[in-house]
């Protein structure tokens, strides 16, 4: 304990240098939080956005649906699946949906697209980005058998307005062609032209009837979680429920959207690489400062060792200095980071002028506003990493301090 106090006193002797070094560490904390939190926010956002674009954080579907998404591949009792899924902790919602390709025609024009058949009584904008981005009209109600919601781009292409007819043609479960009538009840605009020009929301009941499905069949059950990081453990829980059934598969968003998952992985790696590099630079700087301080105090060390201090203790002394610096730096880091963090977590920086509203990556629209989101684990990780780095930076100087003999140290004049 004496050593610790000594180390502290040493730091306090050269206040300016200690404060500056601590600031450097604090800066490292700021940087690390900035990179990690902005990354985590962006990824979470993209994951959640892609989840509400159709497949949820997890999806329960027919085994082969992922590879060949034709409409004959379905869950025979999707309603039961939905009920079971809702009982699992961590699941905020489970939506029964039919998804597939169809031809959409109005008047003389036609265009190919994809439909998501939903149950208006159970769907909410929280789980459906198209409902969130409605710009005209509204979602069809449970009583509106033939209501449809189309994207702004498709409405433009097919000359659609609220109330106009839209005929859609699909291939049913037996390979036959079926057509149905729809009337536009709402128009959405996500901002991504390709999505706005291809996606159409249809009523689940109508599509079930048209495709000749069993009364509770559907393509998939999209499951939404409170925390997307729970996807893998919850998948295991879910998969156990249907392990006997050959036809049912459970997919995490990483599996159903490999493009997005790949992108996030690469971006995260890049982010870590960056933080590592900056960390190196800061550690090097700290090491140099400590080294300088050690070099200057050689006489002091000489006296201490002459008076009986062991080299090992000298080494520990310097390490403790470095420890204190780490703690000081962390505290300072928290102080300077907190206001910045709160600002970014609530208001954020708006880059929409630079990137525009239609930027997509991994198939998902990217929010042009940069915000922060720090998970507890990440915060602990950062603190741990910064502290260890400071400690590591002190190793060489500590070693150097303990190495030289007292006589040489005293020679320093």
């Amino acid at each position, binding site marked *: 304990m004496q050593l610790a106090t000594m180390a502290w006193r040493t730091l306090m002797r050269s206040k300016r240098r200690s404060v500056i070094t601590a600031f450097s560490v604090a800066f490292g904390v700021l940087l690390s939080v900035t990179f990690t939190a902005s990354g985590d926010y962006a990824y979470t956002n993209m994951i959640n956005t892609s989840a509400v674009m159709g497949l949820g954080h997890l999806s329960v579907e027919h085994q082969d649906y992922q590879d060949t998404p034709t409409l004959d591949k379905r869950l025979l009792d999707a309603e039961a699946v939905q009920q079971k899924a809702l009982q699992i902790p961590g699941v905020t919602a489970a939506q029964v949906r039919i998804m597939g*390709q*169809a*031809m959409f*025609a*109005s*008047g*003389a*024009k*036609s265009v*190919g697209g994809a439909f998501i058949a939903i149950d208006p009584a159970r769907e909410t904008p929280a789980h459906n980005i198209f409902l969130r981005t409605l710009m005209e009209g509204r979602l069809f109600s449970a009583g509106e*058998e*033939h209501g449809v919601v189309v994207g702004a781009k498709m409405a433009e292409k097919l000359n659609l307005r609220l109330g*106009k*007819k839209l*005929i859609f*043609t*699909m*291939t049913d479960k037996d*390979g*036959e*062609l*079926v*057509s*149905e*009538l729809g009337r536009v009840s709402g128009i959405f605009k996500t901002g991504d032209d390709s999505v706005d020009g291809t996606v159409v929301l249809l009523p689940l009941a109508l599509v079930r009837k048209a495709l000749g499905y069993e009364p509770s069949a559907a393509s998939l059950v999209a499951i939404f979680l409170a925390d997307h990081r729970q996807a893998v453990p919850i998948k295991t829980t879910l998969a156990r429920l249907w392990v006997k059934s050959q036809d049912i598969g459970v997919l995490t968003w990483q599996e159903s959207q490999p493009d997005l998952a790949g992108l996030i992985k690469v971006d995260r790696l890049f982010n870590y690489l960056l933080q590592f590099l900056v960390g190196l630079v800061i550690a090097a700087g700290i090491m140099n400062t400590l080294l300088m301080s050690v070099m200057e105090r050689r006489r002091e060390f000489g006296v201490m060792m002459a008076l009986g201090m062991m080299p090992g203790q000298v080494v520990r002394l310097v390490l403790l200095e470095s420890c204190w610096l780490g703690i000081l730096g962390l505290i300072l880091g928290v102080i300077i980071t907190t206001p910045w963090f709160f600002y970014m977590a609530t208001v954020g920086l708006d880059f929409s002028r630079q990137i525009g509203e239609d930027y997509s990556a991994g198939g998902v629209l990217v929010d042009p506003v940069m915000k922060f989101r720090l998970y507890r684990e990440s915060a602990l990780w950062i603190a741990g990493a910064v502290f260890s780095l400071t400690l590591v930076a002190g190793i060489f100087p500590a070693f150097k301090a303990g190495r030289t003999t007292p006589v040489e140290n005293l020679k320093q004049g």
Partner: protein
Amino acid sequence: MNRAVSLARIFLALLVLCAGLFLQTGTALSAQSSDEQEARAILLEIDDLWRATSSQGTVRMQVKTANYTRSMRMEMWSKGKDKSLVRIISPLKEKDTASLKTGNTMYTYLSKTDRTIRLTSSMMMSSWMGSHFTNDDLVKESRLAEDYEPRISFKGKREGREIIEFTLLPHPDAAVVWGRIVMTVTAQGHLPLLATYYDEDNVLARTIYFSEVTNMGGRLLPALLKVVPTDKPGEYTELVYESLRFDLELPESLFSLLELRRR
């Protein structure tokens, strides 16, 4: 394939309409002679007209578009409402290419590559054989009576001829793109003269002209149909029936994939 969509529908609807000659069988349906009853009766017969129980014939088709002019000769068979087979006789390049429709499914046999493809939803709106018809038209042609509610909208003289004009309004749930179809037939004999298609905004999209009334296979019907899209002036598809026979014995096996490939 804008030009094709409604044209084919109208054409086929009128194909059926032409058989108005055989009303005799239909009038036995109901004693009531309100306009609606009459219209419905005529429509029902029209739906059956060009088919009867079965038919076989040869047709010449001429298509003129902004980019090409095409001429084809085809042989057609039909049985009941659901089955039809069309095989190309000329030009040589496309000889033996055939279209088979059974119920809601359509197959196309390509003679050059000796392959059969099944119609999928993405092919629905593409033009059939380069004409102003779409595949969708061919698949949906037998549903007039189910999809529309007929009303007589005019009875009287027009351009010196006694005519009856029907307006067909789609049922609220019918999966058809049109706002209404207006057909004009002769008062005497119910021979089709004109058919016009309107979209939901009441804009005229296509017109079909019927002419050259001839006796074929024992029936009097227009042998020449000309389909004209409104938005593409100068373009048209013309169908000329060279021969037609009705109520023959046609084996079920004729309307099969195997038969499709037979050279």
